[in-house]
């Protein structure tokens, strides 16, 4: 992730990377690389980009803010809502500083266009959303820190599904009503979920259904929005790996018969997006916030808290899983 962010900074301009911290030093690196996180402050940076395991995020972020540095942190924002609150407290202590989290899916062109279509009122009232985000678990699944609940806070839901939840929250307000099934089917030697299903409803009656999966065996991103006057779907999402396909937005407005009833299968418009500009837009927003005081719109700590609370609600809504998870985090699994 650090490399991707670095490239985006170079492309944007106005950033000078003075030092990097990694688990090992690189003799060929063009910038100083340290292994002790505290050593980066020797270089007196204005900004810290935080790309560390989830359990380390709160300390790194709070330390940076309290030392007067603006912070861009990768998602998820820690392991749980308490972690987010800790960071919010540091943010409140340092009101002049920018804190932004990398929920970059909001910046994808197809998602932005879908948002414009909903916001313009063209589609009418939103009825429901369906999101599927999944992959094939990957190499070293059991050894990866992402699947150690003490470090990550959870499995596929908190790692990948959280992006879909963030988009749900962008299109509709909070979802207090949650039902879920959370399970572990394939990677049974680690105590984190490899599938999470959630059915949610907000106070305006908007329903959202999520399936987040590490056993989908193909990389797949699908977000569908159904509204009174038609529907939108986004299939595929441009990613660094390129394995989730081209981003394709389909949008259709209903055709009505003479009695005003929708005729099935309306004409739809398909728009394909082949260039991933999300990293650039995200960096631009952060730059504008730091340099020109522009507000952060995507990835605020409040959005981070909202989505973390929703993740916790989904874990808690499956009683069997909830019990198992609590034990796992306490190391009693």
């Amino acid at each position, binding site marked *: 992730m650090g490399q991707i962010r670095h490239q985006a900074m170079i492309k944007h301009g106005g950033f000078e990377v003075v030092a990097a911290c990694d688990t090992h030093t690189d003799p060929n690196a063009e910038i100083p690389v340290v292994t002790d996180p505290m050593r980066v402050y020797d270089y007196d940076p204005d900004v810290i980009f935080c790309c560390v395991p989830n359990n380390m995020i709160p300390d790194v972020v709070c330390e940076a803010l309290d030392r007067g540095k603006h912070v861009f942190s990768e998602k998820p924002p820690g392991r749980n809502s308490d972690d987010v609150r800790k960071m919010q407290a540091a943010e409140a202590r340092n009101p002049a500083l920018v804190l932004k989290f990398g929920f970059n899916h909001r910046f994808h062109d197809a998602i932005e*266009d879908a948002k*414009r*279509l909903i916001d*313009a*009122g*063209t589609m009418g009232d939103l009825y429901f959303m369906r999101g599927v985000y999944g992959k094939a678990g990957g190499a070293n699944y059991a050894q990866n820190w992402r699947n150690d609940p003490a470090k990550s806070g959870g499995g596929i839901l908190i790692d990948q599904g959280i992006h879909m939840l963030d988009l749900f929250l962008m299109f509709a307000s909070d979802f207090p009503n949650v039902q879920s099934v959370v399970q572990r089917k394939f990677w049974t030697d680690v105590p984190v979920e490899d599938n999470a299903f959630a059915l949610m409803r907000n106070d305006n009656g908007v329903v959202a259904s999520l399936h987040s999966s590490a056993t989908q065996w193909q990389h797949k991103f699908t977000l569908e929005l159904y509204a009174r006057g038609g529907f939108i779907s986004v299939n595929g999402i441009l990613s660094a790996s390129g394995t989730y396909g081209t981003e394709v937005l*389909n*949008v259709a*407005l209903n*055709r*009505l018969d003479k009695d005003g009833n929708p005729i099935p*299968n*309306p*004409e*739809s*418009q*398909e*728009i*394909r997006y082949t260039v991933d500009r999300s990293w650039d837009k995200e960096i631009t927003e952060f730059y504008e916030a730091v340099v020109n005081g522009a507000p952060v719109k995507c990835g605020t700590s409040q959005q981070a808290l909202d989505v973390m609370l929703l993740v916790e609600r989904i874990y808690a809504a499956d009683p069997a899983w909830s019990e198992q998870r609590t034990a796992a985090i306490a190391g009693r699994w």
Partner: protein
Amino acid sequence: MVTGMQTPVFIDDLPDSSAVGSRKSERYRQVRNRALAEMLLDEAVTWHERPCPACGQDRASSRNFSQALMPFQRCSACNTIYAARVPDQRHLDQERLQMLSDLPPEPADSAKSTREFEFVSILNWLRLTEARHGKPLNTVAEYRFSSQAPSLPQTVERIGSTRDWTFLPLSDSGSANFGDLRDHLQASSPDAVLLYGEMDRIAEPAQLLRVVRANLPRGSLVFIATSCADGLEYEILGADSPSFVPLDRLNIFSVGGFSALVEELGYKAIEISTPGRLDAVILQKYFTEIEGSDVPFWSGFFRSANKDRLHDLQILLQRSLRSGVMRFVLET
């Protein structure tokens, strides 16, 4: 605000080949060709020679497209198909008014609903572009299409568009140099102008585009639908294409040629598509009905293709900007 240009694909049920026959019947073609022959003999009509109406390439370096009735060329620089000699606009308009008054009334029932789906497609096109572009189009001026499609205003009225539409029909008076449009644009500054099927039929398309841009505030949108010379139908069948009716197709722009033209005139193209639905069925009909019409690969392909495969091809053509009609959205 959308940045960059988009190329939407319009996905819908594919009409079957019966829809093709009724659209441009052989009889209609004959009537139009007779009208053209009469114009050629009419001494009151002035004709002028012209280069490629899109990129201005000299006729001498273009290729012959058709010599029947009058010369049509295919530009070797931009692929636009064009009449190398065109009649003056006034006589073109008069002839068109005559033709429209001679036409039978619009057919009822099934054909009518096909027509209405086309109108709904236009209205939804505006709605979706407006939303993506983040700019409300409260007032729209439509130029001359309502003369070709008299039921358009009723459909617009019935579907309950929230915007104000003005329909400027083809008229015998006041349309010299598109003065009727100029006056309306100056008086009302609409947010958008719709030119549907008009670019094909006029002697000086650049002139019409100049009038539109000169009389609209910057940032207004212009929605244009026209034939597309890059379409597979024109590429394979050339002047044998059933869509090629010379008097109705004085200009068949290519995507590249029209893009260059509008850029030259100061517009910014924000959306380009070739939303044709008929190329595949037209070609299938042609190759199954015309004996001895053998073209390597394609005749066999179309004779054996089922509806499913035709649909796949049609979508591929759209995605490749290779269908026989195109739509542009321009910003002034």
